[in-house]
Protein backbone atom coordinates (compact mmCIF):
# COMPACT_ATOMS: atom_id res chain seq x y z
CA UNK A 1 0.00 0.00 0.00
CA UNK A 2 3.03 2.25 0.23
CA UNK A 3 2.89 3.25 -3.43
CA UNK A 4 -0.80 4.09 -3.15
CA UNK A 5 -0.18 6.12 -0.01
CA UNK A 6 2.34 8.18 -1.95
CA UNK A 7 -0.13 8.68 -4.76
CA UNK A 8 -2.88 9.72 -2.36
CA UNK A 9 -0.68 12.23 -0.54
CA UNK A 10 0.60 13.61 -3.86
CA UNK A 11 -2.90 14.48 -5.00
CA UNK A 12 -3.45 18.26 -4.80
CA UNK A 13 -6.53 17.80 -2.65
CA UNK A 14 -4.39 16.33 0.13
CA UNK A 15 -1.60 18.86 -0.11
CA UNK A 16 -0.16 19.50 3.36
CA UNK A 17 -2.06 16.70 5.02
CA UNK A 18 -0.45 15.21 8.14
CA UNK A 19 1.27 11.96 7.28
CA UNK A 20 -0.56 10.12 10.07
CA UNK A 21 -3.92 11.17 8.66
CA UNK A 22 -2.74 10.47 5.14
CA UNK A 23 -1.99 6.89 6.12
CA UNK A 24 -5.50 6.45 7.51
CA UNK A 25 -7.03 7.80 4.34
CA UNK A 26 -4.76 5.73 2.14
CA UNK A 27 -5.88 2.72 4.09
CA UNK A 28 -9.36 3.23 2.62
CA UNK A 29 -8.13 4.04 -0.89
CA UNK A 30 -7.67 2.12 -4.10
CA UNK A 31 -6.73 2.90 -7.67
CA UNK A 32 -9.33 3.02 -10.43
CA UNK A 33 -9.27 3.16 -14.19
CA UNK A 34 -12.34 4.11 -16.21
CA UNK A 35 -12.45 3.83 -19.98
CA UNK A 36 -14.30 6.45 -21.98
CA UNK A 37 -18.02 5.89 -21.50
CA UNK A 38 -17.76 3.96 -18.25
CA UNK A 39 -19.66 5.22 -15.22
CA UNK A 40 -18.16 6.06 -11.85
CA UNK A 41 -21.61 6.06 -10.33
CA UNK A 42 -25.30 6.24 -11.21
CA UNK A 43 -28.03 8.42 -9.76
CA UNK A 44 -29.66 6.69 -6.82
CA UNK A 45 -26.93 4.13 -6.23
CA UNK A 46 -25.18 4.06 -2.88
CA UNK A 47 -22.37 6.63 -2.80
CA UNK A 48 -19.68 4.28 -1.61
CA UNK A 49 -16.64 6.01 -2.98
CA UNK A 50 -15.29 9.50 -3.36
CA UNK A 51 -13.10 9.93 -6.44
CA UNK A 52 -10.04 12.11 -6.83
CA UNK A 53 -9.20 12.54 -10.52
CA UNK A 54 -5.57 11.91 -11.36
CA UNK A 55 -5.92 11.96 -15.12
CA UNK A 56 -8.77 12.38 -17.60
CA UNK A 57 -12.22 13.97 -17.50
CA UNK A 58 -15.52 12.99 -15.92
CA UNK A 59 -18.94 14.38 -16.92
CA UNK A 60 -21.58 14.89 -14.26
CA UNK A 61 -24.95 14.48 -15.89
CA UNK A 62 -28.64 14.08 -15.33
CA UNK A 63 -30.92 12.09 -17.57
CA UNK A 64 -34.29 13.76 -18.18
CA UNK A 65 -36.91 11.24 -19.40
CA UNK A 66 -37.01 10.93 -23.16
CA UNK A 67 -34.03 13.19 -23.68
CA UNK A 68 -30.29 12.79 -24.01
CA UNK A 69 -28.26 13.21 -20.85
CA UNK A 70 -27.60 16.79 -19.82
CA UNK A 71 -24.03 17.39 -18.69
CA UNK A 72 -23.94 20.16 -16.13
CA UNK A 73 -20.32 19.90 -15.12
CA UNK A 74 -17.08 18.21 -15.98
CA UNK A 75 -14.40 17.43 -13.45
CA UNK A 76 -10.78 17.12 -14.45
CA UNK A 77 -7.34 16.55 -13.04
CA UNK A 78 -7.03 17.47 -9.38
CA UNK A 79 -10.76 17.70 -8.86
CA UNK A 80 -13.18 15.64 -6.76
CA UNK A 81 -16.18 13.72 -7.97
CA UNK A 82 -18.94 13.20 -5.46
CA UNK A 83 -19.97 14.82 -2.22
CA UNK A 84 -23.07 12.69 -1.73
CA UNK A 85 -21.10 10.30 0.45
CA UNK A 86 -20.84 13.03 3.10
CA UNK A 87 -24.53 13.38 3.88
CA UNK A 88 -27.40 10.90 4.30
CA UNK A 89 -28.86 9.02 2.51
CA UNK A 90 -25.40 8.59 0.98
CA UNK A 91 -26.61 8.08 -2.57
CA UNK A 92 -25.41 9.49 -5.89
CA UNK A 93 -27.56 12.44 -6.96
CA UNK A 94 -26.48 12.30 -10.59
CA UNK A 95 -24.55 10.15 -13.02
CA UNK A 96 -20.79 10.41 -13.36
CA UNK A 97 -19.38 9.17 -16.67
CA UNK A 98 -15.78 9.14 -17.86
CA UNK A 99 -15.48 11.20 -21.07
CA UNK A 100 -12.05 9.85 -21.83
CA UNK A 101 -9.64 7.38 -20.24
CA UNK A 102 -9.65 8.41 -16.60
CA UNK A 103 -7.58 7.31 -13.67
CA UNK A 104 -8.85 8.14 -10.21
CA UNK A 105 -8.19 7.33 -6.59
CA UNK A 106 -11.33 5.93 -5.03
CA UNK A 107 -11.64 6.28 -1.28
CA UNK A 108 -14.08 3.95 0.44
CA UNK A 109 -16.72 6.27 1.82
CA UNK A 110 -18.15 3.88 4.41
CA UNK A 111 -14.68 3.17 5.69
CA UNK A 112 -14.00 6.88 5.91
CA UNK A 113 -17.31 7.62 7.64
CA UNK A 114 -16.61 4.96 10.28
CA UNK A 115 -13.16 6.38 10.88
CA UNK A 116 -14.59 9.90 11.22
CA UNK A 117 -17.05 8.70 13.86
CA UNK A 118 -14.23 7.00 15.76
CA UNK A 119 -11.80 9.89 15.48
CA UNK A 120 -13.47 13.29 15.40
CA UNK A 121 -10.18 15.08 14.91
CA UNK A 122 -9.62 13.12 11.71
CA UNK A 123 -13.21 13.89 10.72
CA UNK A 124 -12.72 17.62 11.32
CA UNK A 125 -9.47 17.75 9.35
CA UNK A 126 -11.15 16.10 6.41
CA UNK A 127 -14.26 18.28 6.63
CA UNK A 128 -12.00 21.34 6.56
CA UNK A 129 -10.75 20.10 3.23
CA UNK A 130 -14.03 19.03 1.73
CA UNK A 131 -16.16 21.97 2.68
CA UNK A 132 -14.17 24.59 0.69
CA UNK A 133 -14.36 22.34 -2.34
CA UNK A 134 -18.12 22.06 -1.96
CA UNK A 135 -18.39 25.85 -1.47
CA UNK A 136 -16.31 26.45 -4.59
CA UNK A 137 -18.50 24.14 -6.62
CA UNK A 138 -21.53 26.00 -5.27
CA UNK A 139 -20.04 29.35 -6.36
CA UNK A 140 -19.21 28.00 -9.78
CA UNK A 141 -22.65 26.52 -10.15
CA UNK A 142 -24.23 29.84 -9.20
CA UNK A 143 -22.23 31.65 -11.86
CA UNK A 144 -23.22 28.94 -14.30
CA UNK A 145 -26.95 29.25 -13.68
CA UNK A 146 -26.74 33.04 -13.98
CA UNK A 147 -26.40 32.30 -17.69
CA UNK A 148 -24.31 35.45 -18.14
CA UNK A 149 -23.76 34.88 -21.85
CA UNK A 150 -27.46 34.73 -22.62
CA UNK A 151 -28.90 37.64 -24.62
CA UNK A 152 -31.14 39.84 -22.49
CA UNK A 153 -34.34 41.06 -24.05
CA UNK A 154 -34.03 44.74 -24.90
Amino acid at each position, binding site marked *: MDGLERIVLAHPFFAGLEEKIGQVVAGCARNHRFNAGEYLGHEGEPADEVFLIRHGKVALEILPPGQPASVFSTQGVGEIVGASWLVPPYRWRFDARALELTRAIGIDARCLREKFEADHNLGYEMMKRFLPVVMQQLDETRLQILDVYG*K*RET
Partner: protein
Amino acid sequence: MASVDLPVGDLPVGTKAILSRQGLQALIDVLGARGYRVLGPTLRDGAIVYDDLAGVADLPAGWTDVQQAGQYRLERRADEALFGYAVGPSSWKRFLHPPLERLWQTQRTSNGFTVTPPDTTVPKFAFLGVRACELHAIQIQDTVLKRGPYRDTGYDRRRQDNFLIAVNCGTAGGTCFCVSMKTGPAVDSGFDLALTELLDAGSHRFLVETGSAAGAAVLAELPRQAATPDDCSAAQVVVARTAQHMGRSLDTDGLKQLLQANPDHKRWEAVGERCLSCGNCTMVCPTCFCTAVADHSDLAGETAERVRRWDSCFNPDFSYIHGGTVRTETKSRYRQWITHKLASWIDQFGTAGCVGCGRCMTWCPVGIDITEEARAIRDNPAVAVPQGG
Protein backbone atom coordinates in the same frame (compact mmCIF):
# COMPACT_ATOMS: atom_id res chain seq x y z
CA MET B 1 -14.59 114.87 -4.10
CA ALA B 2 -13.02 115.78 -7.41
CA SER B 3 -15.09 114.83 -10.44
CA VAL B 4 -12.85 115.08 -13.43
CA ASP B 5 -13.47 112.95 -16.47
CA LEU B 6 -10.37 110.88 -17.16
CA PRO B 7 -8.74 111.18 -20.57
CA VAL B 8 -8.97 108.47 -23.22
CA GLY B 9 -5.76 106.50 -23.77
CA ASP B 10 -4.02 103.28 -22.77
CA LEU B 11 -4.95 101.97 -19.36
CA PRO B 12 -3.02 99.37 -17.43
CA VAL B 13 -4.70 96.17 -16.25
CA GLY B 14 -5.82 96.62 -12.65
CA THR B 15 -6.92 100.19 -13.17
CA LYS B 16 -9.90 101.20 -11.10
CA ALA B 17 -12.39 103.88 -11.97
CA ILE B 18 -15.94 104.98 -11.27
CA LEU B 19 -18.80 104.56 -13.72
CA SER B 20 -22.18 106.19 -13.41
CA ARG B 21 -25.39 104.64 -14.69
CA GLN B 22 -24.73 106.54 -17.89
CA GLY B 23 -21.27 105.03 -17.98
CA LEU B 24 -22.84 101.61 -17.71
CA GLN B 25 -25.12 102.39 -20.64
CA ALA B 26 -22.07 103.55 -22.58
CA LEU B 27 -20.42 100.24 -21.78
CA ILE B 28 -23.33 98.32 -23.31
CA ASP B 29 -23.33 100.64 -26.32
CA VAL B 30 -19.59 100.35 -26.89
CA LEU B 31 -19.77 96.56 -26.74
CA GLY B 32 -22.69 96.54 -29.16
CA ALA B 33 -20.75 98.78 -31.53
CA ARG B 34 -17.84 96.36 -31.35
CA GLY B 35 -20.05 93.53 -32.56
CA TYR B 36 -20.78 91.84 -29.24
CA ARG B 37 -24.07 90.24 -28.41
CA VAL B 38 -24.59 91.68 -24.94
CA LEU B 39 -26.39 89.42 -22.45
CA GLY B 40 -27.26 90.10 -18.89
CA PRO B 41 -29.90 89.87 -16.19
CA THR B 42 -33.45 90.83 -16.93
CA LEU B 43 -36.88 90.17 -15.49
CA ARG B 44 -38.93 87.48 -17.17
CA ASP B 45 -41.54 84.99 -16.03
CA GLY B 46 -41.13 85.93 -12.40
CA ALA B 47 -37.41 85.36 -12.33
CA ILE B 48 -34.16 87.12 -13.14
CA VAL B 49 -32.74 85.38 -16.19
CA TYR B 50 -29.90 86.12 -18.60
CA ASP B 51 -31.05 87.46 -21.93
CA ASP B 52 -30.15 90.01 -24.61
CA LEU B 53 -29.71 93.52 -23.23
CA ALA B 54 -30.29 96.69 -25.19
CA GLY B 55 -29.47 98.93 -22.28
CA VAL B 56 -29.48 99.65 -18.59
CA ALA B 57 -33.27 99.89 -18.69
CA ASP B 58 -33.44 96.13 -19.26
CA LEU B 59 -31.70 95.43 -15.97
CA PRO B 60 -33.82 94.35 -12.98
CA ALA B 61 -33.53 97.66 -11.17
CA GLY B 62 -34.90 97.56 -7.66
CA TRP B 63 -35.52 93.83 -7.60
CA THR B 64 -34.04 91.15 -5.41
CA ASP B 65 -34.55 87.41 -5.16
CA VAL B 66 -35.58 85.56 -2.01
CA GLN B 67 -34.31 82.01 -2.18
CA GLN B 68 -34.63 78.98 0.00
CA ALA B 69 -34.54 75.27 -0.62
CA GLY B 70 -37.35 74.70 -3.06
CA GLN B 71 -38.33 78.36 -3.14
CA TYR B 72 -37.65 81.34 -5.35
CA ARG B 73 -39.53 84.57 -5.55
CA LEU B 74 -38.79 88.15 -6.48
CA GLU B 75 -39.29 91.08 -4.13
CA ARG B 76 -39.01 94.79 -4.55
CA ARG B 77 -36.02 96.41 -2.89
CA ALA B 78 -36.11 99.66 -1.00
CA ASP B 79 -33.53 101.03 -3.44
CA GLU B 80 -32.96 100.93 -7.20
CA ALA B 81 -29.92 98.65 -7.27
CA LEU B 82 -29.38 97.16 -10.72
CA PHE B 83 -27.64 94.00 -9.48
CA GLY B 84 -29.29 93.60 -6.11
CA TYR B 85 -30.04 89.89 -6.42
CA ALA B 86 -27.98 86.69 -6.18
CA VAL B 87 -28.43 84.32 -9.16
CA GLY B 88 -31.40 83.18 -11.20
CA PRO B 89 -32.33 79.80 -12.61
CA SER B 90 -30.27 80.13 -15.75
CA SER B 91 -26.55 80.43 -15.93
CA TRP B 92 -24.13 81.39 -18.68
CA LYS B 93 -23.95 77.70 -19.53
CA ARG B 94 -27.09 78.24 -21.57
CA PHE B 95 -25.02 80.21 -24.11
CA LEU B 96 -21.61 78.57 -23.89
CA HIS B 97 -22.81 74.97 -23.67
CA PRO B 98 -26.34 75.28 -25.09
CA PRO B 99 -29.22 72.90 -24.42
CA LEU B 100 -29.46 71.91 -28.06
CA GLU B 101 -26.78 71.85 -30.71
CA ARG B 102 -26.58 70.29 -34.12
CA LEU B 103 -23.29 68.42 -34.44
CA TRP B 104 -23.46 67.57 -38.14
CA GLN B 105 -25.74 66.65 -40.96
CA THR B 106 -25.50 63.84 -43.39
CA GLN B 107 -26.93 63.16 -46.82
CA ARG B 108 -27.42 59.82 -48.50
CA THR B 109 -25.61 59.37 -51.81
CA SER B 110 -25.75 56.68 -54.46
CA ASN B 111 -23.09 54.64 -52.73
CA GLY B 112 -23.06 55.83 -49.17
CA PHE B 113 -23.43 59.17 -47.44
CA THR B 114 -21.61 62.47 -47.00
CA VAL B 115 -21.20 64.37 -43.75
CA THR B 116 -21.48 68.14 -43.53
CA PRO B 117 -19.93 69.90 -40.56
CA PRO B 118 -22.06 72.34 -38.56
CA ASP B 119 -22.29 76.03 -39.09
CA THR B 120 -19.34 77.42 -37.18
CA THR B 121 -20.39 81.06 -36.95
CA VAL B 122 -21.03 82.07 -33.38
CA PRO B 123 -21.84 85.44 -31.89
CA LYS B 124 -19.21 87.27 -29.89
CA PHE B 125 -20.64 87.11 -26.42
CA ALA B 126 -20.43 89.87 -23.84
CA PHE B 127 -21.79 88.80 -20.48
CA LEU B 128 -22.78 91.58 -18.11
CA GLY B 129 -23.35 90.56 -14.51
CA VAL B 130 -21.15 87.48 -14.09
CA ARG B 131 -21.00 86.49 -10.43
CA ALA B 132 -17.78 85.26 -8.83
CA CYS B 133 -19.25 81.78 -8.55
CA GLU B 134 -20.18 81.93 -12.22
CA LEU B 135 -16.66 82.93 -13.24
CA HIS B 136 -15.44 79.82 -11.45
CA ALA B 137 -18.15 77.76 -13.11
CA ILE B 138 -17.02 78.94 -16.54
CA GLN B 139 -13.44 78.08 -15.69
CA ILE B 140 -14.56 74.66 -14.46
CA GLN B 141 -16.40 74.01 -17.71
CA ASP B 142 -13.32 75.22 -19.61
CA THR B 143 -11.32 72.52 -17.85
CA VAL B 144 -13.86 69.83 -18.68
CA LEU B 145 -14.66 70.80 -22.23
CA LYS B 146 -11.43 72.35 -23.49
CA ARG B 147 -8.61 70.74 -21.56
CA GLY B 148 -9.34 67.03 -21.88
CA PRO B 149 -7.70 64.73 -24.45
CA TYR B 150 -10.43 65.88 -26.87
CA ARG B 151 -11.73 69.43 -27.12
CA ASP B 152 -15.38 70.32 -27.50
CA THR B 153 -14.86 72.35 -30.65
CA GLY B 154 -18.25 74.08 -30.42
CA TYR B 155 -17.66 75.18 -26.83
CA ASP B 156 -14.22 76.36 -27.85
CA ARG B 157 -15.70 78.54 -30.60
CA ARG B 158 -18.35 79.98 -28.31
CA ARG B 159 -15.70 80.87 -25.72
CA GLN B 160 -13.58 82.76 -28.22
CA ASP B 161 -13.53 86.51 -27.70
CA ASN B 162 -15.92 86.45 -24.75
CA PHE B 163 -16.07 89.75 -22.89
CA LEU B 164 -16.88 89.08 -19.26
CA ILE B 165 -18.11 91.85 -16.99
CA ALA B 166 -18.18 90.46 -13.51
CA VAL B 167 -20.30 92.01 -10.80
CA ASN B 168 -19.39 91.55 -7.18
CA CYS B 169 -22.32 90.42 -5.07
CA GLY B 170 -23.92 92.97 -2.80
CA THR B 171 -26.62 90.58 -1.71
CA ALA B 172 -26.04 87.05 -0.50
CA GLY B 173 -28.58 84.49 -1.63
CA GLY B 174 -30.54 82.35 0.79
CA THR B 175 -28.90 79.23 -0.58
CA CYS B 176 -25.45 80.66 -1.35
CA PHE B 177 -22.27 79.12 0.01
CA CYS B 178 -19.53 80.45 -2.25
CA VAL B 179 -17.46 81.25 0.82
CA SER B 180 -17.31 77.55 1.70
CA MET B 181 -16.35 76.63 -1.85
CA LYS B 182 -13.80 79.48 -2.05
CA THR B 183 -15.42 80.81 -5.20
CA GLY B 184 -16.61 84.18 -3.92
CA PRO B 185 -18.26 86.48 -3.15
CA ALA B 186 -15.40 88.60 -4.47
CA VAL B 187 -14.30 88.00 -8.05
CA ASP B 188 -10.60 87.41 -8.35
CA SER B 189 -9.63 86.56 -11.92
CA GLY B 190 -10.95 85.52 -15.30
CA PHE B 191 -12.87 88.73 -16.04
CA ASP B 192 -12.34 91.63 -18.41
CA LEU B 193 -14.06 94.17 -16.20
CA ALA B 194 -15.38 93.81 -12.66
CA LEU B 195 -18.03 96.05 -11.19
CA THR B 196 -19.08 96.68 -7.64
CA GLU B 197 -22.34 98.52 -7.26
CA LEU B 198 -22.12 101.36 -4.71
CA LEU B 199 -25.47 102.70 -3.66
CA ASP B 200 -25.94 105.16 -0.88
CA ALA B 201 -27.91 108.31 -0.22
CA GLY B 202 -27.62 110.50 -3.28
CA SER B 203 -25.17 108.35 -5.21
CA HIS B 204 -25.51 105.36 -7.46
CA ARG B 205 -22.19 104.47 -9.01
CA PHE B 206 -20.04 101.50 -9.93
CA LEU B 207 -16.44 100.88 -9.03
CA VAL B 208 -14.95 99.25 -12.11
CA GLU B 209 -11.71 97.34 -12.23
CA THR B 210 -9.96 96.14 -15.37
CA GLY B 211 -8.90 92.52 -15.48
CA SER B 212 -7.47 92.26 -18.99
CA ALA B 213 -6.12 94.29 -21.87
CA ALA B 214 -9.47 93.92 -23.65
CA GLY B 215 -11.24 95.25 -20.58
CA ALA B 216 -8.82 98.15 -20.30
CA ALA B 217 -9.34 99.01 -23.97
CA VAL B 218 -13.10 99.17 -23.52
CA LEU B 219 -12.88 101.14 -20.28
CA ALA B 220 -10.71 103.67 -22.04
CA GLU B 221 -13.71 104.51 -24.24
CA LEU B 222 -16.13 105.06 -21.41
CA PRO B 223 -16.92 108.29 -19.54
CA ARG B 224 -15.61 107.69 -16.09
CA GLN B 225 -14.13 109.32 -13.01
CA ALA B 226 -11.24 108.51 -10.75
CA ALA B 227 -11.85 105.99 -8.01
CA THR B 228 -11.04 107.36 -4.58
CA PRO B 229 -9.72 105.37 -1.65
CA ASP B 230 -13.20 105.76 -0.09
CA ASP B 231 -14.76 104.18 -3.18
CA CYS B 232 -12.37 101.25 -2.98
CA SER B 233 -12.99 100.63 0.71
CA ALA B 234 -16.74 101.02 0.20
CA ALA B 235 -16.53 98.29 -2.43
CA GLN B 236 -14.64 96.04 -0.06
CA VAL B 237 -17.28 96.61 2.61
CA VAL B 238 -20.00 95.52 0.20
CA VAL B 239 -18.28 92.23 -0.52
CA ALA B 240 -17.28 91.62 3.10
CA ARG B 241 -20.87 92.13 4.18
CA THR B 242 -22.09 89.67 1.56
CA ALA B 243 -19.60 87.11 2.81
CA GLN B 244 -21.09 87.41 6.28
CA HIS B 245 -24.59 86.58 5.10
CA MET B 246 -24.16 83.31 3.27
CA GLY B 247 -27.34 81.24 3.41
CA ARG B 248 -25.49 77.94 3.65
CA SER B 249 -22.10 76.49 4.44
CA LEU B 250 -20.33 73.29 3.45
CA ASP B 251 -17.31 71.79 5.19
CA THR B 252 -15.19 70.53 2.31
CA ASP B 253 -12.36 69.22 4.45
CA GLY B 254 -11.90 65.51 3.59
CA LEU B 255 -15.35 65.52 1.99
CA LYS B 256 -14.15 63.72 -1.14
CA GLN B 257 -12.84 60.77 0.85
CA LEU B 258 -15.95 60.69 3.03
CA LEU B 259 -18.34 60.50 0.09
CA GLN B 260 -16.28 57.96 -1.83
CA ALA B 261 -15.98 55.75 1.26
CA ASN B 262 -19.71 55.72 2.00
CA PRO B 263 -21.56 54.45 -1.07
CA ASP B 264 -23.79 52.28 1.11
CA HIS B 265 -24.76 54.93 3.65
CA LYS B 266 -28.38 54.83 4.85
CA ARG B 267 -28.70 58.49 3.94
CA TRP B 268 -28.86 57.64 0.23
CA GLU B 269 -31.98 55.63 0.92
CA ALA B 270 -33.54 58.58 2.73
CA VAL B 271 -32.77 61.19 0.09
CA GLY B 272 -33.73 58.70 -2.63
CA GLU B 273 -37.23 58.64 -1.25
CA ARG B 274 -37.57 62.42 -1.49
CA CYS B 275 -35.84 62.97 -4.81
CA LEU B 276 -38.16 63.02 -7.81
CA SER B 277 -35.31 62.38 -10.24
CA CYS B 278 -36.60 65.40 -12.18
CA GLY B 279 -33.13 66.64 -13.10
CA ASN B 280 -33.85 70.31 -12.32
CA CYS B 281 -30.65 70.52 -10.33
CA THR B 282 -28.55 69.41 -13.27
CA MET B 283 -30.24 71.86 -15.60
CA VAL B 284 -29.73 74.91 -13.39
CA CYS B 285 -26.27 73.88 -12.21
CA PRO B 286 -23.68 76.03 -14.00
CA THR B 287 -21.11 73.24 -14.16
CA CYS B 288 -23.18 70.16 -15.05
CA PHE B 289 -22.06 69.27 -18.55
CA CYS B 290 -23.59 65.91 -19.43
CA THR B 291 -25.15 65.61 -22.85
CA ALA B 292 -26.82 62.96 -24.97
CA VAL B 293 -26.95 62.61 -28.72
CA ALA B 294 -29.89 61.85 -30.92
CA ASP B 295 -29.89 60.86 -34.55
CA HIS B 296 -32.83 62.04 -36.61
CA SER B 297 -33.55 61.25 -40.21
CA ASP B 298 -36.26 62.63 -42.44
CA LEU B 299 -39.20 60.43 -43.46
CA ALA B 300 -37.65 59.55 -46.80
CA GLY B 301 -34.44 58.49 -45.09
CA GLU B 302 -32.40 60.73 -47.36
CA THR B 303 -30.93 63.12 -44.85
CA ALA B 304 -30.09 62.71 -41.24
CA GLU B 305 -28.57 64.79 -38.51
CA ARG B 306 -27.01 64.30 -35.16
CA VAL B 307 -27.95 66.69 -32.42
CA ARG B 308 -26.62 67.00 -28.95
CA ARG B 309 -28.80 68.00 -26.04
CA TRP B 310 -28.42 68.41 -22.33
CA ASP B 311 -28.84 65.19 -20.42
CA SER B 312 -28.95 64.43 -16.72
CA CYS B 313 -27.55 61.61 -14.65
CA PHE B 314 -31.00 61.56 -13.03
CA ASN B 315 -32.44 60.35 -16.30
CA PRO B 316 -33.18 56.64 -15.77
CA ASP B 317 -31.72 55.79 -19.18
CA PHE B 318 -28.49 57.64 -18.51
CA SER B 319 -26.65 54.48 -17.49
CA TYR B 320 -28.40 52.06 -19.86
CA ILE B 321 -26.33 49.10 -21.12
CA HIS B 322 -27.05 45.56 -22.29
CA GLY B 323 -30.76 45.83 -22.14
CA GLY B 324 -30.86 47.29 -18.64
CA THR B 325 -30.00 50.33 -16.58
CA VAL B 326 -27.14 50.27 -14.10
CA ARG B 327 -28.62 52.86 -11.72
CA THR B 328 -32.22 51.75 -11.48
CA GLU B 329 -32.92 53.32 -8.10
CA THR B 330 -33.26 57.05 -7.50
CA LYS B 331 -30.92 56.80 -4.53
CA SER B 332 -28.18 55.46 -6.79
CA ARG B 333 -28.65 58.36 -9.18
CA TYR B 334 -28.64 60.93 -6.40
CA ARG B 335 -25.51 59.34 -4.97
CA GLN B 336 -23.92 59.51 -8.42
CA TRP B 337 -24.74 63.22 -8.82
CA ILE B 338 -23.53 64.41 -5.44
CA THR B 339 -20.47 62.16 -5.40
CA HIS B 340 -19.50 63.34 -8.87
CA LYS B 341 -20.07 66.99 -7.97
CA LEU B 342 -18.20 67.03 -4.66
CA ALA B 343 -15.74 64.13 -4.94
CA SER B 344 -15.09 62.40 -8.28
CA TRP B 345 -14.81 65.77 -10.03
CA ILE B 346 -11.71 66.47 -7.97
CA ASP B 347 -10.11 63.22 -9.19
CA GLN B 348 -11.14 64.00 -12.75
CA PHE B 349 -10.52 67.73 -13.06
CA GLY B 350 -8.58 68.92 -10.00
CA THR B 351 -11.32 70.93 -8.30
CA ALA B 352 -14.79 70.25 -6.98
CA GLY B 353 -17.54 70.72 -9.53
CA CYS B 354 -19.65 72.78 -7.12
CA VAL B 355 -19.28 76.56 -6.91
CA GLY B 356 -21.71 77.16 -4.07
CA CYS B 357 -24.31 79.06 -6.11
CA GLY B 358 -27.22 77.30 -4.40
CA ARG B 359 -29.31 76.85 -7.54
CA CYS B 360 -29.73 73.10 -7.07
CA MET B 361 -31.40 73.69 -3.72
CA THR B 362 -33.54 76.64 -4.80
CA TRP B 363 -34.88 74.89 -7.86
CA CYS B 364 -35.37 71.44 -6.36
CA PRO B 365 -39.15 70.90 -6.17
CA VAL B 366 -38.77 69.11 -2.86
CA GLY B 367 -36.01 71.34 -1.50
CA ILE B 368 -33.18 68.82 -1.20
CA ASP B 369 -30.18 70.62 0.23
CA ILE B 370 -26.78 69.48 -1.00
CA THR B 371 -25.07 70.94 2.08
CA GLU B 372 -27.42 69.08 4.39
CA GLU B 373 -26.87 65.78 2.59
CA ALA B 374 -23.10 66.18 2.78
CA ARG B 375 -23.38 67.13 6.45
CA ALA B 376 -25.46 64.04 7.18
CA ILE B 377 -22.75 61.79 5.81
CA ARG B 378 -20.02 63.66 7.68
CA ASP B 379 -21.85 63.67 11.00
CA ASN B 380 -22.55 59.96 10.96
CA PRO B 381 -20.37 58.13 8.48
CA ALA B 382 -20.86 54.42 8.04
CA VAL B 383 -17.17 54.32 7.08
CA ALA B 384 -14.98 56.97 8.68
CA VAL B 385 -11.93 58.40 7.02
CA PRO B 386 -8.89 59.81 8.81
CA GLN B 387 -9.01 63.58 9.04
CA GLY B 388 -6.65 65.76 7.12
CA GLY B 389 -7.15 63.74 3.93
